Structure formats: structure tokens, C-alpha cells
């Protein structure tokens, strides 16, 4: 029932003729009043629905065992699915004509055989190379048997929505799940396809010492070069109540070999007043994979959200990062590093909205492209609204291109509507700095060694900010290994 093959080239019908209204087959079987009304009132709009998107949505719904018996689906999840299918009806597959995808070509996904993974992996052997409490999500399914949550305080909950036994936690979580999001098509696809919602709940005042390590594995995959593209839709909701603090390590890993698959993940974070989330996000997918990731963060007053991202994998990797400061005196710090060592696209689209007084934000984005067909894309929007007085916002992006024809498209932009603000902003695209290189050589260090040290140091500025030495070390090694051939070739 699951494996549906899609025809490679489906285009949105340019001007649908009114005489042949294409009313899509209803997506959900558990039709609601609302659904019906949407369909009728928007029949014109739905007639423009993208057939590819609809087929995908159908396949996703079919793949979920729960969609036939809605009793086993908790309400927040059901709402999520309903909202998502509704949005999906009017959202076409993005094309390069759409501004958010101007430099990011998603057509290879469309021309692949996208197949939802309908069950957790049969067997899973995972080396437990983490010293932290960890939770495993494989092909979008939580795998409790290989997770290890010891080391977390009892009052902290990490697990699936279905497994929440406390009424009060469930109630609190339901208040927030997928409210006020501004996601795109991929957000909605995840909303339909997520088999369950993983929840990380930190109660008020609880300061969690150990970070929780979320390990996402993609097991199903087509062999290198095949057009098979199994899709998985992991979805996690992190909810930190007043004054709570936790570290989240998200790590995305491919299985063995360069398998092709599509990980379409969503992370939602809510940090209540005075709370703090330190988020480490590490993406090491296979070079044949599509990796599309949403991180949506809502921060109440006085809260802190710190992100350190290192993304090296994927044939297409797109990170949508949306952060909204919902109260005054809120701190947001973002440090991201993208590396493209192969024929790949690394894309960060970030949006930070500062709406309240005395907000503080720092954003540093760095990328290295060391392949002539590699590409990095950065669209970083920071909006300082009228009431965000005495805001201190800084944004800096630096790119390093190590090969002829390596490409970077950067669009950092600060929109400032408030007038009493301190904002700095900059973008630089460079080869290695000649003066720095000379400093090494003047001390007897040959150009190749110097170049290597400088390239490594370029990424180190972000990697060094990962708060956990073990994670930092592992990423440093990974980074070095990936760069080794590139440095040799380019010198």
C-alpha cells in the first residue's frame, strides 16, 4: 500500500480550464465538517493543487496505520494532520521562481520515486557512542528499545505524545503544538506524514544538567544512483516551562553507504519566560540524501535560545530556521556552519523576528564550498519591529570558496523599523586571507600546511561553540576527514 511511485515530471497545470475542474480526491478519510467546507469554498484554488503534492499527501496518509482508526491518534496530532492537509491543498511544489527556492533546486526530489517509510526498521543496531541520555528516531519512528533516558530528572518527559500519561502535561503540550507556525510545504508534508510527535518536556524551574541527545537515523534508502527516495518525517516538540533549562543535541545520520532517502524533519521549540535552550544541530546525512529541516522557535520574555549548527551532509540540505521573540529582554544566539565538499547544496533560510524591547541577537553564518559543483545558500532575515527598541542585533556571514565555480548565494538582511537600536551586519566572500597565509609562511610554515590550518580554523569558529567537548571533538574529526581531499586538491 505504501510504495507509490511518482511519475517523474509532473507540472502544475499553468491555466486550468474551468470546464475541467480537477477536484482532488479527499486526502483524509475522517472527513470533518471543516474539511468539506474548505473544499467547496476553495474549489477554485484546489483546482490548482499540485498533482505531485496530492499524490505524495495521499501516499503519506496511506502509510500511517493510525489514519484508519483515529481513536489511537491523540488530539494534538490529529489537529496537526488536519491543519497540514488543509494547507497542503493550496500549496504547490516549489519552483525556482519562488523566492525562497530561487537558488535551491528541489526538482530531484520530484523526479524520484518518493516512498513513505511505513514502519520502523525491523532491526536496528546502533552503537551507543554517546555519553548523554539519548532518544533514537529511526526513519521517523521513535525506537524506545535503543534509547536510553537515564540521567534525566524524573519530572522531565522525553517520549511520544501517545505515551504521555500525565493529563496536565498533555494539556500544556496541546496548547502549543503547531500553533502560530508559518511553515511551508515541507512543514505541512511533515505534519501529514509524522507517525507520532516526540515530546521533550521540561517543567517550570527544572534545570536539566545533561543534554538530551536526539539521534535521527535514516535506515531505508535507495542504493546510490537509484531513483528510490524513501521519505521519513520525524517531528519533535520541545517545551521548556518558566525558568527551565535544557540542552538539545539533534544529530542526523545516514545508514551505511551513500543511500538516497529524504529526511523531512521538523523541530518546534517553545521556551517560556526565563527559560533556556541550548540547541546543537548536527547534520551528517548521506551525500545522496535530501534533508529538509524546520526549526521553529518561540521565545517568551527573558528567555535564551542558543543554536550551534554544523551541516556537512546531504545532496540537498535545507534548514528553515524561524525564531520569534515574544517578550522583552530575550536573547537569541545563532552560529551555523555549512560545508559543501561534494556536488551538494547547503541552504540556510533563517528568519528572526524581534518585536519587543531590549532584545539581543547574534547571528554568525559561515560556509565553505570546496567542490566546483557545490553550492551554499544563505537567506538570513532579521526583522526589528517598531516596539523592539534598544535592541542589539548583529549578523555576520562569511563564505569561503575553495574551488573554481564553487558557488555561494548569500542574502543577509536586517529590516529595522524601530529607531533606537544597535545593529551590525556584514557579509564577506573570500578566498583565504593572503595576509593570514603570509603570517604562517613568514614563520616557516609551508603554504599547504598553512592553507589547511586556515580552512580548519574557518569552521572551527563555529564548531568551537558546541557546548559539549565530546560532540565538538567528533565533529572536528569529521570536518577534517571531509576536507582532507579538498585541501589537497585545491593546493
Amino acid at each position, binding site marked *: 500500500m505504501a510504495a507509490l511511485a511518482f511519475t517523474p515530471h509532473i507540472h502544475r497545470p499553468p491555466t486550468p480550464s474551468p470546464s475541467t475542474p480537477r477536484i482532488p480526491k479527499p486526502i483524509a478519510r475522517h472527513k470533518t465538517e471543516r474539511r468539506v467546507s474548505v473544499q467547496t469554498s476553495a474549489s*477554485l*484554488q484546489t483546482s490548482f493543487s499540485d498533482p505531485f503534492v496530492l499524490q505524495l499527501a495521499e501516499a503519506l496518509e496511506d502509510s500511517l496505520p493510525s489514519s484508519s482508526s483515529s481513536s489511537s491518534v491523540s488530539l494534538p496530532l490529529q489537529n496537526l494532520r488536519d491543519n497540514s492537509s488543509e494547507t497542503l491543498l*493550496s*500549496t504547490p511544489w*516549489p519552483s525556482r*521562481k*519562488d*523566492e*525562497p527556492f530561487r537558488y535551491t533546486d528541489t526538482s530531484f526530489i520530484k523526479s524520484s520515486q518518493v516512498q513513505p517509510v511505513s514502519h520502523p526498521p525491523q532491526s536496528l543496531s546502533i552503537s551507543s557512542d554517546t555519553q548523554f541520555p539519548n532518544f533514537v528516531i529511526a526513519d521517523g519512528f521513535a525506537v524506545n528499545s535503543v534509547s536510553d533516558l537515564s540521567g534525566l530528572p524524573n519530572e522531565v518527559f522525553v517520549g511520544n505524545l501517545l505515551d504521555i500519561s500525565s493529563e496536565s502535561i498533555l494539556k500544556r503540550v496541546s496548547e502549543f503544538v503547531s500553533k502560530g507556525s*508559518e*511553515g*511551508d510545504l515541507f512543514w505541512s508534508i511533515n505534519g501529514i506524514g509524522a507517525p507520532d510527535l516526540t515530546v521533550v518536556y521540561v517543567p517550570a524551574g527544572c534545570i536539566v544538567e545533561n543534554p538530551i541527545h536526539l539521534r535521527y537515523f535514516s535506515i531505508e534508502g535507495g542504493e546510490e544512483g537509484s531513483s528510490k527516495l524513501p521519505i521519513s518525517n520525524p517531528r519533535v516538540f520541545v517545551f521548556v516551562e518558566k525558568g527551565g533549562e535544557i540542552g538539545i543535541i539533534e544529530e542526523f545520520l545516514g545508514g551505511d553507504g551513500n543511500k538516497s532517502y529524504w529526511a523531512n524533519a521538523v523541530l518546534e521549540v517553545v521556551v517560556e519566560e526565563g527559560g533556556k535552550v541550548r540547541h546543537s544541530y548536527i547534520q551528517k546525512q548521506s551525500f545522496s540524501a535530501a534533508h529538509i529541516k524546520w526549526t521553529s522557535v518561540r521565545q517568551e520574555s527573558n528567555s535564551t535560545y542558543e543554536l550551534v549548527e554544523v551541516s556537512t551532509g546531504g545532496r540537498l540540505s535545507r534548514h528553515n530556521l524561524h525564531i520569534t521573540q515574544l517578550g522583552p529582554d530575550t536573547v537569541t544566539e545563532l552560529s551555523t556552519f555549512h560545508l559543501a565538499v561534494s556536488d551538494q547544496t547547503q541552504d540556510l*533560510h533563517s*528568519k528572526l523576528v524581534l518585536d519587543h524591547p531590549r532584545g539581543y541577537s547574534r547571528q554568525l553564518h559561515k560556509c565553505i564550498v570546496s567542490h566546483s559543483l557545490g553550492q551554499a545558500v544563505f*537567506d538570513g532575515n532579521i526583522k526589528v519591529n517598531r516596539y523592539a527598541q534598544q535592541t542589539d542585533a548583529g549578523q555576520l556571514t562569511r*563564505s569561503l*570558496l575553495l*574551488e*573554481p*565555480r*564553487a*558557488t555561494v*548565494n*548569500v*542574502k*543577509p*538582511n*536586517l*529590516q*529595522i*523599523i524601530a529607531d533606537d537600536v544597535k*545593529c551590525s*551586519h556584514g*557579509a564577506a566572500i*573570500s*578566498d583565504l586571507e593572503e*595576509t*593570514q597565509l603570509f*603570517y*604562517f*609562511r*613568514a*614563520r*616557516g*610554515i*609551508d*603554504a*599547504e*600546511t598553512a592553507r589547511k*590550518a*586556515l580552512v*580548519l*580554523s*574557518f*569552521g*572551527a*569558529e563555529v564548531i*568551537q561553540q558546541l557546548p559539549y567537548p565530546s560532540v565538538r571533538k567528533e565533529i572536528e574529526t569529521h570536518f577534517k576527514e571531509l576536507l582532507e581531499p579538498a585541501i589537497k586538491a*585545491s*593546493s
Partner: protein
Amino acid sequence: MALNLLPYPPCTLSSPPQSYSSSSATSSVPFTRYASPSNSLLFTLTATRPLPFRTNHARRHLTPLSASLSTFDSPSTSGSHGKKKLLLEVKDLTAVIAESGKEILKGVNLSVYEGEVHAVMGKNGSGKSTFAKVLVGHPDYEVTGGSVVFKGENLLEMEAEERSLAGLFMSFQSPIEIPGVSNIDFLNMAYNARRRKLNLPELGPIEFYAYIFPKLDLVNMKTDFLNRNVNEGFSGGERKRNEILQLAVLGADLSILDEIDSGLDVDALRDVAKAVNSLLTTQNSVLMITHYQRLIEFIKPAYIHIMEDGKIVKTGDISIAKILEKGGFKAIS
């Protein structure tokens, strides 16, 4: 019907027109090309001229200038080179700024013998730093004429790193920051480059630490400077000390010190001068660039050269500096 045609999904991230942001909104950045610089790793150590003397600098590198035992006997009174060996010989050196072709050095002549201390003084912009940087092979400049022989070899044919390995050291007037590279890693890399050249095994981080630790005292630097990134966030004075630390670790036959005294407080100046003095032996030489009498009193050069508009226009002994201090440059011209 056209009313309902939505060309974009409703949630596109388009920039509203009222954004009056900074230079920003560059929607695209053109391709940037990476050009690999020529990167010859071959040491062109074949002498291009007959060696006028034999040096055993290989042995000298084995024992990089030791921190202790500074029995530098100043030749300041003698003024004659005696039987000393010629270390550096610069003849009619001319150089331009590579980018603009503007001539900065207009025929520099200078000879430095082993064990000598020389000072170069001169107005701002007269070309002192340019001279120093040209000697160590800075890519901003292009030599257009003249010759430079260092220890019998044609210096101008050597890559910057070969010049360093051959025993030439320059402390920068404005040392730059290298974010992401720790000071100790940098020093370790530089030290190992020397070991490699001498066919000696490289030192790992722990062995190296043991080697470098005593040198910190010499420049009065705290250990935590080793773990910080090269010059990152260092004060002006700390950067100068860091340059001298590099000199102490690597050793040199000729050290060119470009304004190591600028930006130093009185105590720091004494520390740095003491460190330099302690690194001096009867074989190695110093070419210091300075504006001030103070450093000259500490280090006591035998020769003072005055540079003006890209040339050395006057050479004399330490008394020149005194005249300068009193009457300015017009008193000596």
C-alpha cells in the same frame, strides 16, 4: 478567477519593500573564483653565488637561541667589522607595491655582519616597514631591481617560508589575528617545520609544551596565552610580546624587529628589550626599526641608518639617535 491565482505559497519569505536596511539585500553574489597560488614546496637552497663563507646554520637550529646566557658583547664602540662574516648584503634594492606599481624602495644599500645590531630610523612613510617586508618576501611588494644575499644565498629567489627556515625572522609592526588557530598550535607547526627541514622528528603537543614552557617567562607571558587564538583579542603590547615569543621559540640568525617598542608601556618595553638582549649571541644579528631613543638605549645598536623616501641616506653610530631625539630629522639632514 484571476483574483484567486496565487503565484506563491502564502508563506513565502519575501522581503517587504519598507526594509531600509544596510547595504544588505544583495539578492545574489556573483561567483567568486578561487585561484590557487603558486605553491612550490621545493626548497631552492642551491646557492646562486659562490658561498663567501661557510656557515653551519644547521647546527644552530638545533639549539634555538637559548633563553639564558646572554653574554652579548656590544660591538657598538668598535664600528669595524673585523673578521666577522657578512650575513646580509642588500644592494640597490628597489621595490614597488605589487597592486599599483608605485615605487616605495628606491635603491637601498645595507650590510649586516654576524653579531651586529643595526637600527633603521626615519619618518613615517619613509619605507622602513616596506623594506623589512620585502626582505621576508611579503606578497604585497614586487622587487624591481638590486640584490639581496643572505648567508651567501640569493634571498630574492626564495619563498617566504624558505627565508624563515634559512634563519630570517621579522616581527611585524602590526601582527594580525588568526581566529580559530591556537597560539600553541601555531608555534608547534612553525617549530615542526624547522625540525622537518633538519630531518628531525617532529614534536607532539606534549613534548612541545615542555619545550615552550620555559620561554614564556622570558617574555613575561601567562600560560593561557598559549591556548588563545593567535593574537585574537591581544592588546597591542601582548601582540609584540607574542612576536618575541615566536622569535625565542624559532630562533634566527637575523631578526628584523619592526617597532617592537611602539604601544608598550615602560615596564613592557624593558621586558621586551631584555628578552631581545638575552637572545643575542655573537653570531646572530638584529635589525631594529624604531622611532625612539629608549629602545636604542636598551639594545644599543652599533649602527643607525636613516631612511628617507625609500633610501638609506645616512649611517652613523648611536650618537645620531641622540641628535634625532633633540632636533628631529632636520638636525641630521
